[in-house]
């Protein structure tokens, strides 16, 4: 059992939990994820690590309630425990293993969308701690849905915000803001990292590609075990079938077949809807 040390609602339907998981905290690196189960009978849900503190032995996850299982996770409170918390899984971000002087000559652009903002944080934090320059774009529908802005401001050289309705920062899509930064303001980046909804990552990749900007994306494929045992997380990358959980979750965006990935992600959509109707949500009543 893994105790919840802190819980905060970051925006409607998005909740942060700091969880006691000393072994995971000691081993975690940016880019990796955990598999979480709320209770006996719960589904195994992959969540990208949003922060970790080896000293305290804690790992932070940020969950968006999209189905029964994520609602169950978010309905737990401080002092209660998650049944399972396994990780860290997947490959760490590539930069973690790159020679530091080479890294310091590079400049990163992170493009974060929605709940995908959370996993960008440990990456930007790691780079900033290692003296590597990075800018961050956070995109959301509207100001109320923005998360992690304060944290990100501390670790990014520049933080840019884009909202669809213009309630904060740039009005429009993150891709339009990318264009503005690169074309109008003449910013130069060596690497783009996009984490967010699949459709956003697809379009960020297309935009970045038009500037020949190498792009890494973090795929949130459907998973069961998260250790390479089932192949539920199959994804086509550069014409080869890879397993997101062991070969990823980060891949070269240019090579990912996003349309297939989106289709595969929707495999259980009808079943999830009916399950959701059965489940009475009490996440935010407490």
């Amino acid at each position, binding site marked *: 059992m893994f105790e919840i040390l802190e819980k905060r609602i970051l925006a409607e339907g998005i909740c942060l939990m700091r969880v006691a998981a000393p*072994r995971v905290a000691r*081993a975690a690196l940016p880019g990796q994820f955990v598999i979480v189960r709320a209770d006996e009978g719960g*589904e195994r849900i992959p969540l990208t690590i949003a922060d970790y503190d080896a000293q305290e032995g804690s790992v932070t996850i940020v969950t968006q309630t999209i189905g029964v299982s994520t609602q169950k996770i978010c309905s737990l409170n401080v002092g209660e425990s998650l049944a399972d918390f*396994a*990780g860290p*899984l997947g490959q760490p971000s590539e930069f973690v293993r790159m020679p530091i002087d080479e890294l310091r000559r590079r400049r990163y652009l992170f493009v974060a969308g929605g709940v995908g903002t959370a996993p960008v944080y440990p990456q930007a934090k790691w780079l900033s701690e290692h003296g590597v320059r990075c800018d961050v774009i956070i995109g959301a529908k509207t100001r109320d849905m923005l998360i992690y802005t304060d944290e990100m401001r501390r670790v990014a050289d520049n933080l840019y915000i884009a909202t669809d309705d213009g309630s904060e920062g740039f009005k429009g899509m993150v891709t339009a803001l990318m264009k503005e930064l690169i074309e109008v303001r003449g910013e130069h980046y060596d690497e783009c990292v996009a984490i967010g909804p699949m459709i956003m990552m697809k379009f960020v990749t297309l935009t970045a590609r038009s500037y020949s900007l190498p792009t890494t994306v973090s795929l949130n494929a459907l998973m*069961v075990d998260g*250790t390479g045992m089932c192949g539920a997380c199959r994804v086509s990358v550069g014409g080869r079938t890879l397993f997101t959980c062991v070969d990823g979750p980060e891949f070269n965006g240019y090579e990912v077949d996003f349309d297939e990935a989106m289709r595969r992600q929707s*495999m259980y959509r009808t079943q999830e809807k009916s399950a959701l109707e059965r489940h009475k949500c009490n996440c935010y009543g407490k």
Partner: protein
Amino acid sequence: MANKIARVAVREQDPAARAANFEEVCYGYDRQEALTEASRCLNCKNPRCVAACPVGIAIPDFIAALAGGDEAAAAEIISRDSLLPSICGRVCPQETQCEGSCILGIKSQPVAIGKLERYVGDWKIANAEAPAKRPEWNGRKVAVVGSGPSGLACAGDLAAMGYKVKVFEALHKLGGVLVYGIPEFRLPKHKIVEREIDSLRRLGVEFETDVIIGRTLTVDELLDNEGYDAVFVGSGAGLPRFMGIEGENLNGVFSANEFLTRVNLMGAYDPATSDTPVYVGRRVVVVGGGNVAMDAVRTAKRLGAEAVIVYRRSEAELPARVEEVHHAREEGIEFRMLTNPTRILDDGNGWVKGISCVQMTLGEPDQSGRRSPVVVEGSDFEIDCDVVIMALGTSPNPLIASTTEGLAVNRRGCIEADDSGATSRPGVFAGGDTVTGAATVILAMGAGRRAAKAIDEYIKNL
């Protein structure tokens, strides 16, 4: 004459009823039946069954004890060579092992050794004495990676020798393939597997789930930081293979591991208690002919689909246990032999609408002695289905080998280990499917026990 008695038929659930539920197919013998069947054994001087048993159980001896009505003695005799009789009695391929070499089988039917083993194993579980006395700790610690049969057997033996043993399991539930792969209708989890694990707990074995060795902790950390004197790796062969044909990433194509894991480990067959979905569809094609394929196809049937086996060789080559094939047929599974898929067909929306196959014929025997299938030119045809499940075999997960300093693997990705389980890395032992590639429960159990012995010797010489 003892051998004039016919083999005692075992009671089973009615095929039509069981094809719609997950309860155990075979009820096993009651005491009277078991004693009668046991009386059929000729107690051969040179028992061929013992030689054919991968762990050399003293079969005529335990059967003789049973025939005399002494279950406790029978259980004791089996336990010298096997730790998991209630499990192996249910899942061993007896027809190619003990029963396959029984003298009685030449003229009539072999003694039902598997069913008798199961009877004794179940008797032992039901009559287990109060907590087995824990041996005194000898001051040494051993870590076991994986809670499948090899890990459980190794842990049990070491604990009985006085070692402090901790089993690290990646998943949230203990048992390896016994819980995530083999379905409830063949091997009850609560009644059998959990009870075997409980008995290890009583011996003092500790378990920690949610620990992925190679990620959460490494083998090197177990040895260097966590104070273990040796490590046994029993991590199985969990990596599913796909065919590499067109359409394999369509929605509705699964590995057997995924399908079975959703249903068995995650309990997806009962939406009232499980949040995990499983997609079953209307008509399911399972590709393969082993135990895994039989388990997947019969599971699909139980979940309400029409279910078809597609296998590229003929019935005679089916690697599954004979009993499973027989049960599958009784349950109404359709068998398409000498058939090989070439392409999975898209319904236009990215979902499966059928599978394109070719007819095969058997050619010359290959190195393994099996006649290899050859394509019949121009024999393409389609099978209608909306789900395809690939049960083509599995290989070891590279995670542990790739994160352990100096641990050699062979070309097939299996950890290299000698007969005792010793690997290229001192202090690291391995056994079961991770060494042999996908094999059997009894072999994995045997390997775990041999490794326990070797670990004991290794530590004593430290």
